[in-house]
């Protein structure tokens, strides 16, 4: 175990100079892929995510279609080159789990009854990984879905809080995630405050959990503004991908 006190904080600042409630830098661009119905490129710290959305479209295989509403399919995948040690291509248990919970995070906001028998396909490719990829993926997915014109109650925003050296902080970076004591990603619908995803890896007391949740909610509110901005900017400059 690493000696937390000396390694994670120096003069009250974290390894990358951030305060405990500061997010890493984020860049979001909507409408970057010509072929997809909706798309988003997102950077969050060292994370680089590409999201593509197709739909609503006919479901193949047919037996998966639902007679009175659309279904949502979500594929989270890490590119082989996204991590230091080459990741073998294809879904692994972690990707399958992340895909499932991310789908559940997004599904509840989609107005599925408007498109019976169709599917909304969401593809998240992690091009570079730096802790917090599932949250970044959800943020990109929401923007890509809006970009595709999918009707939704609101956007979904995700962010992670964690614990390092006994301190609850916002938005863990890779080293903090690998050597820290807890990691808690959450996803919310900022419009309603509903939580659509919450996970915890590690140990937190109930008070620490409360603190982490508060921090993550604050982080989500900031990210939500960036998601909105990306969509509004996209229209203003008429980026490629527009037909």
């Amino acid at each position, binding site marked *: 175990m690493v000696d937390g006190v000396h390694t994670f904080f120096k003069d009250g600042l974290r390894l990358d100079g951030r305060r405990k409630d500061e997010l890493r830098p984020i860049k979001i661009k909507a409408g970057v892929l010509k072929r997809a119905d909706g798309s988003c490129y997102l950077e969050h710290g060292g994370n680089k995510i590409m999201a593509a959305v197709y739909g609503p479209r006919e479901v193949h295989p047919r037996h998966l279609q639902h007679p009175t509403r659309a279904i949502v399919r979500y594929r989270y995948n890490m590119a082989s080159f996204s991590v230091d040690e080459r990741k073998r291509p294809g879904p692994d248990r972690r990707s399958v789990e992340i895909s499932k919970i991310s789908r559940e995070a997004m599904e509840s906001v989609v107005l599925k009854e408007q498109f019976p028998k169709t599917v909304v396909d969401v593809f998240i490719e992690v091009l570079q990984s730096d802790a917090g990829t599932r949250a970044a993926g959800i943020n990109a997915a929401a923007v890509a879905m809006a970009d595709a014109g999918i*009707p939704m109650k609101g956007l979904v925003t995700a962010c992670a809080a964690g614990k390092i050296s006994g301190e609850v902080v916002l938005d863990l970076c890779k080293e903090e995630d690998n050597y820290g004591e807890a990691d808690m990603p959450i996803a919310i619908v900022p419009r309603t405050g509903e939580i659509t995803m919450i996970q915890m890896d590690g140990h937190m007391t109930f008070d620490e959990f409360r603190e982490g949740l508060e921090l993550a909610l604050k982080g989500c509110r900031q990210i939500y503004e960036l998601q909105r901005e990306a969509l509004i900017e996209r229209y203003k400059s008429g980026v490629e991908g527009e037909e």
Partner: protein
Amino acid sequence: MDAGKMPRIVVPGDLLSEEPAKVGEGAYIEDGKVYASVYGVLDKKDRIRVIPLAGKYIPKRGDTVIGSVTEISFSNWILDIASPYEAYLHISEYPRRIEPGEMSKYIRVGDLIVATVLDVDWSMMVELTLRENQFKVLRGGRLLEISHTRVPRLIGRGGSMISMIKRESRCSIFVGQNGRVWLQGKPENMKLAAQAIEMVVREAHTPGLTNRVVEFLRANR
């Protein structure tokens, strides 16, 4: 569109009104407040609605569409109408009485036709008819596919934009509600019309568009 005023872009979940009001497409009411449900342009002129900037064409009764035949079943032509849903044209909806065996004599697989949506039922089965238009198979022209969300702008108020493009490019143009556009004319005129249409699609929500399109057409004739 308001001439000269930049429209307000909204994103799903944006609050559009704190009080209940009549809503149209792209907006919904919850707890007495109105929110946007799609990414689009806010329009408060009559009902509160959001004109989508993207999305798939969902057929509704009365729409006139351009479809391409993908299959002929025993008594239906099955068509692709650029939608997540395919459409059926029953043999009885052909303007004349014909026998099931001779269906491909009149409309073949691969043909493009203009048809009207007769009905869309709860299971999204789309039925078309040819009885409401001057029926013909579209040949000898060019097909453009644009986002159906741009069709109202391409047509313009009372047909003003499309009539102007037809006139200035000297082409006959038919715009389907499903975003398919049929051009007919001399190749260089069709090319000009296509460029003008692409310009409308790109700049649909900017003010002063009609004048710019006229200028473009006149400059490049």
